[in-house]
């Protein structure tokens, strides 16, 4: 019996050695990770959330018994195609710069008559209404160019605020977003870290979000992603739909403008 273990150990050691030769090993490892990512492209479970989103979009709900079919995501009531690629943007009716999530919540509360609590219930858990709806909305922008020029003064201000927040260091690890995301060709362990301060880096990253995260069995919206980055920086929970979170998105989407949206992506 022990022999099988020796045999298996030999396999393991062999594989370990082959990869151990520092620089060459790292390159080989990154190559294999690329292969892993490639294999996941075919069959993205985000399609399941998109189907749920379609159901929710056309389902009469709330005190008003209304569907979301007249929701205005910036291109006019009911105009879904390409809308996600132009968010966040300023909305005159609310007087605020809104991202896809906060705008969907506006529609759910104003059109359907849901309470804020009902509309955002379990927003951070797999299977939430927000997860399904954002997946649907983003999927309907697949192939559209991200276009967030931030010409409106409120939008321009949000870009500037987002940039400030991006560089704001605090906490027990002295981190800001910029700690991990302001240099090219960096990795944390083997995960690539996009340089979100550059057009190229922001485009590569933002074109993939929202994304199905295999480690979470869920599609993560951009707010979910950002609030978790702050958790990983060892901050307390940031408020969902808060201005600072939308401002960060505004800063990154502006940087990413011009990229073709390929969301929903599939990520670690």
């Amino acid at each position, binding site marked *: 019996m022990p022999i099988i273990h020796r045999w298996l150990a030999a396999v393991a050691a062999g594989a370990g050695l082959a990869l151990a030769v520092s620089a060459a090993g790292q390159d080989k490892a990154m190559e294999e990770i690329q292969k892993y990512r490639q294999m996941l492209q075919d069959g993205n479970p985000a399609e399941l959330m998109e189907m749920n989103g379609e159901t929710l979009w056309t389902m009469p709900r709330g005190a008003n018994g209304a569907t979301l079919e007249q929701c205005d995501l910036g291109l006019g009531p009911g105009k879904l195609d390409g809308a996600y690629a132009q968010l966040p943007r300023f909305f005159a009716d609310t007087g605020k710069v809104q991202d896809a999530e906060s705008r969907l919540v506006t529609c759910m509360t104003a059109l359907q008559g849901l309470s804020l609590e009902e509309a955002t219930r379990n927003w951070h858990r797999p299977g939430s209404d927000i997860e399904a709806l954002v997946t649907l909305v983003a999927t309907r922008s697949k192939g559209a160019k991200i276009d967030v020029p931030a010409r409106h003064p409120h939008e321009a201000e949000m870009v500037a*605020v987002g940039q400030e*927040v991006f560089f704001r260091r605090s906490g027990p690890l002295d981190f*800001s977003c910029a700690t991990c995301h302001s240099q090219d060709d960096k990795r944390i362990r083997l995960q690539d870290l996009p340089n979100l301060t550059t057009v190229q880096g922001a485009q590569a990253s933002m074109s993939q979000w929202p994304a199905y995260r295999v480690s979470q069995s869920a599609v993560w919206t951009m707010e979910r992603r950002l609030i978790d980055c702050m958790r990983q920086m060892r901050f307390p929970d940031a408020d969902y739909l808060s201005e600072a979170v939308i401002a960060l998105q505004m800063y990154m989407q502006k940087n990413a403008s011009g990229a073709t949206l390929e969301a929903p992506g599939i990520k670690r």
Partner: protein
Amino acid sequence: MRRLAYTLLPRMLLPWTLLLGATAALPLPSSAGDVSAKAEDSFRKAFSTASPEQWATRLAQDEVNALCSKHRNQPPPEVAARIIELSKASIKLPEDGKLMGDWKEGEKLASIGTGGHIGRIQPDRAGTRQGGNCYACHAIAKQEIAAGNLGPSLTNYAKVRGTSPEAVRYVYAKIYNAQAFFPCSSMPRFGHNRWLTPKEIADAVAFLLDPESPVNK
């Protein structure tokens, strides 16, 4: 300790300040003051459920973090000097005075990335070990392929830096507070922020410099 930091200082600082002179601070938005006040207000409001204690330990900025944020981590020379001065003063030695601990403990710390997560969404379970997570940013022992590259490779570190008492002191101080040498470094101030204890830092020093450590094999 104060003396130690000073003796190390000139060698470490000189090329850095020269570099800084060349790259200078990035331009800030025109109404920089307004924007930063607005951003600070937004940021504060985004953490409406944080307790005062959480605000103080997790979100409020000390002078160094405020300066680094303001200068986008590229402080002009006089600011850099101020950061170095503050950082040097923060460094404390282990009680037993031993700067080289147990490399095996240091190796464990280098891999552990857990600990310190708070909030209601996904906090750490009680008793979660808080590690140094060195591999997140550094290649260290050759055997670990899943190493990040935010920081420089530390493979064969003892061979590169030697194991003299000066080298040991430098590595200890660098882990304790990297900004004593590199103002606005990305590296967490592990000792200053009490993320690691002085003893744990000494273990990390041993992992990097002990000839028996896999880092140097």
